[in-house]
């Protein structure tokens, strides 16, 4: 039931529910547009599977799987 960003399929879209953690990287994710309620689009992974290219809040952002695991989402089928 708790899906995270790294579990999405390439090309899949989802709504952001929450971001785990309260450290520097958690706020960096928020500043860069990973905000609850916002739509996130997992575009494709890098050639070796990590990091992941996402599209959120109108910009394209690469995050490693480690960071993507902090982003809880609700997939849009």
């Amino acid at each position, binding site marked *: 039931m708790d899906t995270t960003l790294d579990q999405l399929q390439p090309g899949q879209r989802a709504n952001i529910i929450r971001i785990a953690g309260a450290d520097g990287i958690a706020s960096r994710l928020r*500043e*860069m547009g990973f905000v609850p309620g916002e739509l996130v689009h997992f575009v494709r992974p*890098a050639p070796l599977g990590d*990091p992941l*290219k996402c599209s959120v809040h109108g910009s*394209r952002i690469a995050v490693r799987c480690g960071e993507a695991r902090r982003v809880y989402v609700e997939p849009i089928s």
Partner: protein
Amino acid sequence: MASVPTVSVAETSGQDRVALVGNPNTGKSTLFNALAGMNVRTGNYPGVTIEKKTGVCELETGKITVVDLPGTYSLAPRSPDELVAVEVLTDHVTQPDGVNLIVCVVNALLLQRNLFLVSQLLELGKPVVVALNMIDVAKSRGMEIDVERLSTQLGVPVVATSAAKRTGIDKLKTVVAEQLKTSPEQHERSRILPPEFYASVDRFRDSLIATDEASDASLPDDYLLERMVLDRGGAPELQVIRTYGDSAAESLAAIREDLTQALGDPIDIECNARYAWAKAKLDSVFKNDSRPSSRVTDRLDAILTHRVMGLICFVIMMFIIFQSIYTFAAWPMDLIDAATSGITDAVCSLMEPGKLRSLITDGIIAGVGGVLIFLPQIALLFLFLALLEDCGYMARAAFLVDRIMTTFGLSGKSFLPMMSSFACAVPGVMASRVIENRRDRFATIMVAPLMSCSARLPVYLLLIAAFIPSTTYFAGWLSLPAIVLMSMYLVGVVAAIPVAWILKKTLLRGEVAPFVLELPEYKIPSAKVVLSRVWAASKAFVIRAGTLIFAASILIWFAGFWPGDHTNQYRMEAQLDSFQGTADARQTLIADLNAESSRLLEDSILGRTGHLIEPIVRPLGWDWKIGVGVLASFPAREVIISTLGTIYSLGGDAEEEGLVGALQASTYDDGTPVYSVPVALSVMVFFALCAQCVSTLLVIRRETNSLFWPCLSFSYMTLLAYFGAWLTYAVSSRLL
């Protein structure tokens, strides 16, 4: 144009100071260039690694100083360095040269997210002007923004600009001048977060005042007080604990706890409040509610970040860069070469043989000219780097290679510093600031100098030109010299892998650091930004040739000239200058002169030192002249060229063919040539791996703030270079 950027970066005290702040990829650098012209002064804020970039802009009302701060997504300082950047904006006591006005550069395409930063700037209580940049791109995508409405909503002037097309710049200047004249120094601070939050900031301030009775330290700025409550483990919190002791830490923890009970975690309070604010402010600002994303970027990314095609494109691009450095630079290099020999001939025809003539021709012209000839190639390398960065590809490269780099203990973000190090390790080491994690950053700093910088390029090019046959393959598309050159670049890269890996297993052990990187939209690179980078790099190279290399050339000349009685040599030179006899007699005279010159060189300090260290360099296949050159090139690698230039010029070997010919012609006493392909390769590998560069070691010292790391760099690289050269010589002399 209403006003012209000034030519001189004059003494700036007393002038109004305007800060340029904005997210990365908003066209901030282009705007800065448009405002300040080419006259940019870069440096560091004292003691930290925040770049201080200032320029002078002329408004109708007079000159102002423009301060360009590094691109940032927010004003939440996470490190002491970032804290300095915020203090510049808050008139903090430790930053006497604070700013009077803030220009926030905003990307029109990402307006809502960019307003996050704007909301923080409005809390500083300084006059703010918003430059709504990239408005032309937004318009072309059918995005219509009501600029006046936005200005009313935000309560600050908003100017639509396109730094790339240079529109709106004059309007921005006028608005800035107006604001500087009419706006009061202190504005009311916006209060964007909930009232409960400000109540807890007040509580915290009171608790500090209570503990503060004894000391007369002034209270932190209100904005920083707010950050202390908001950012767990942030730089302001650490600073206040250092000043006020553990009681501050305790009251901060208690206040955060109460706040979390009432409203939720401070991090969520801030994020929700700011995005809600941004959304409200954008109400009816967009005339059509589209958020158009670039289809061109998506299509390009489909290829350039594709799992197979992306990697192929990456390799091809790197290859084209190295091949074109070779091809396009040939013509300007010939020009410089011709100029150098022209000047030498002119000096010789004007002056009698003697000490001074020897100093000028053998020392200065041979030394400095030999290095300057590589200016075209260095300019080209910087041109490609600037192009790749400005068009948005560098971030893709980081994305592509991140997984590979993490295997070796580095990060995708290490790619830009390492790629920059191919131009020069000094900006490369400084570029490692983009890596937030200390361990990743130090590992990058340690291996960045292994990337073949432009100072090695002259060494490679000289030896390749002299000893590698210019065979071409695939109808001239691929040449053997280019392959050898690329291999030399690979040597450093390959060596960097185990070095980084070992460092991350020993001295820099720890968990994998986080990685979040924005991939900006592709754009046509700005000619101004690219050219100003190439200009700055070329200038630095020429200045280096004019100072460091110049001084080293004179020293080397002296060491090769003294002691020794040169009267015989001068007599023969004078005889040769006015020679009338047959060609055969002329040849004999030249041979005698060469013998005399080389005897004098062997007896000089340089010659004696060379013979002393010869046993150490013998296993590498080198003669004493190369040994001395390497020893003398400790301050900077390219000194080897000027040293060899001086040695062969003093020794009488360099004639019309220049240094390349002199190397090819140089022999041991028994007549066997000194240089063979294995020797040339061994010298090249040595220079690929060695740490012969004082500037790099100094910048490592500054960026790591310790003596340990530069010492480690120097020792491991020198050892690596010696064994690498030995191995290369041993293997290649068996194979070739």
